[in-house]
């Protein structure tokens, strides 16, 4: 034996799943919805995605270089933020918007809080909300799908807004995705495929999406003013950012509670807040604000859901 032996304390075995693999799995899972977005809204959607996905890692790289920190863009988390940010934008958004949004998301929301794992809000959503507050006109200028071969009855307004105004919506086109909305949120089908893929490879659990969506629908049923109206509830289920938010952003590891119990509470709050914003708010949409706000409640949720440990608590043995 020539070489020296490695010495470290146990365990000496490591699972094959690493952070970068998880991030790339998320990118893969987002791909169907992003593709539907490009198909529906044309190449401009692709351009926005490309800009956003370039700006986010670049911001991270420059910040880390500037601060003389180890460069971590290889973990893929900035790419995920970039893709999610672009998917949360309408196709008509000016090309400088993903740049501002990306810089805000990575620099302010992620890096200034300490980088990966330290941010208190989902960076992509915080970026979106920042843009929504700063440039409400651009961010709510929804175009109908541009692809000529797709004929859509709803133009200008998202189906969720139409449903709020009391109109009937075409649930099938909402399910498939040829409706107005942001680039990545329109196709419930594509988002479901991605979400279920992540569940199957154990990247996310079903609990947050199911409880979130379930609570929101229950809220819409009770307080929506339409009673048990399939068309209205269907619009709530398939419309707006609920699918994208529930499967891909509410499940963001960093900004959701770490315990199962905490996750149940978190998902219920998400559902309730989304319902409140959608039904009683000014806008028809509420997912982004609901998630951002609930992200901020996570430390409180975690404080009340500290587990007791195996064999602790419960009845004391005599």
């Amino acid at each position, binding site marked *: 034996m020539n070489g020296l032996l490695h010495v470290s*304390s146990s365990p000496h*075995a*490591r699972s094959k*799943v690493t952070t970068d*693999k998880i991030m790339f799995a998320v990118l893969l899972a987002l791909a169907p919805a992003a593709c539907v977005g490009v198909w529906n809204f044309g190449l401009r959607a692709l351009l926005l995605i490309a800009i956003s996905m370039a700006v986010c890692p670049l911001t991270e790289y420059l910040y880390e270089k500037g601060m003389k920190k180890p460069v971590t863009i290889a973990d893929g988390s900035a790419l995920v933020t970039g893709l999610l940010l672009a998917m949360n934008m309408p196709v008509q958004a000016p090309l400088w918007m993903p740049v501002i949004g990306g810089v805000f998301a990575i620099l302010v929301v992620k890096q200034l809080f300490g980088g990966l*794992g330290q941010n208190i809000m989902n960076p992509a959503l915080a970026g979106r909300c920042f843009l929504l507050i700063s440039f409400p006109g651009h961010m709510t200028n929804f175009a109908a799908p541009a692809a000529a071969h797709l004929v859509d009855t709803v133009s200008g307004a998202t189906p969720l807004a139409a449903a709020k105004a009391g109109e009937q919506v075409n649930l099938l086109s909402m399910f498939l995705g040829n409706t107005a909305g942001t680039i990545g949120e329109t196709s419930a089908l594509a988002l479901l495929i991605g979400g279920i893929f992540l569940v199957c490879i154990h990247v996310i659990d079903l609990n947050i999406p199911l409880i979130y969506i379930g609570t929101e629908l229950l809220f819409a049923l009770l307080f929506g003013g339409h009673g048990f109206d399939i068309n209205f509830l269907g619009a709530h289920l398939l419309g707006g950012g609920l699918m994208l938010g529930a499967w891909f952003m509410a499940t963001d590891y960093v900004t*959701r509670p770490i315990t199962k119990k905490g996750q149940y509470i978190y998902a219920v709050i998400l559902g309730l807040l989304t319902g409140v914003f959608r039904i009683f708010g000014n806008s028809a949409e509420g997912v982004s604000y609901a998630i951002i706000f609930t992200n901020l409640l996570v430390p409180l949720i975690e404080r009340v859901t500290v587990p007791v440990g*195996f*064999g602790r608590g419960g009845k004391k043995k005599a």
Partner: protein
Amino acid sequence: MFQKKRNTFHGGVHPYEGKELSKDKPIVKAQPGNLLYYAVSQHIGAPAVPIVQKGDHVKAGQKIAEAGGFVSAPVYASVSGTVKGIEKKVSAAGSPVDCIVVENDGLYEKETFEECPHWEKLDADTIRNKIKEAGIVGMGGAGFPTHVKVSPKDPSAIDYILVNGAECEPYLTSDYRRMLEDPEKVIGGLKIMLHMFPKAKGIICIEDNKPDCIAKFCELVLPGDNIEVLELKTKYPQGAERMLIYAATGRKVNSSMLPADAGCIVDNIDTVTAIYQAVRFGEPLMSRIVTVTGDAVQNPCNFEVPVGMLLSELLEQAGGLKNEASKIICGGPMMGKALFTMEVPVTKTTSALTCLTEDEVSALAPSACINCGRCVSVCPGQILPARLSVFAEHGEEEKFLKYGGMECCECGCCSFICPARRPLTQEISSMRKVLLAKRKKK
């Protein structure tokens, strides 16, 4: 009362098992070298006190060190020869320990042992004393003196004697071979234990990746024996005492309880075999089964090894290394100790020597925690490794205790599963050591 039988526990992981390397290799006797080193501290508790002088002639099976207290165990020579003195040797944990050195004369003269074919006529205290005299300790790795384990405050409160044949640690096949080759001795040992605790029921617990062992025991256990063979789901750390008790009986034992508080006594396969040898044949604990394995070893195999033999000699008898090893572990990859030298004597608790060509730990550097929660879902102690490791890193003792840090059994599941490769177990375990030392001082 309704009590659901669980044959598993909450959490746990499925590391690469690697058992196929050595599982079909029958146990062979390892040939001891010229010098044997008997560590005086091979168990939890006070070190044993040497009772031989330099130049003394000893026989195999002769006591060479006496128990240093109640929680302690005597040490026996495993070969015949001359005592050369006391020398410091590095233990598997990396620190020097006093070892009695015996020069092997190659004659293997044995002490005469007092056989006892009718052990069922002995009372519990006599058996307890025989176990104590034989120097038997928990051979699964902890090394807790067995006579202490079988002396609970209230013997009538013991309802279960569990034989731990889970062998959940990857690569290890020593218990597997023992179960396959000496099942009668295992059952014999268990029967002795049941004789000591007449109200208890015996359960032999085996993971379902060893169906041949399960079948063998089912065949050998008679209906009137008061012994159950229990098949457990294969999952690491099924063999951890608290997880085993839960899987077999549904009872929960926390870190401040002893198994006896839940009416259970748990003993490892090799320990039960040693009890049988001690009570039936009067033989003290002089040898054990050690698996020499890993992808760097020429001929992975299972040895019956005299205590005191050096690991380097053992590796030679397995054909040495075929590839350069980057990590050599005393024990298995989940809980074993990485060695920097192989001049380490085999003790009563050495279960394996695992030589790996690739060190998975140093392959990737730790990165930031992404709060994925995998450590939480695999933690059998049902605590929050991600949070606890941060408290440990920051020295926040109060928070560490509040978050149940002492419930950690250091099984390593959290470090294994962490996608950011964070050394969670290591951080938590060093904090636990500090806190345990403080508790002791008080």
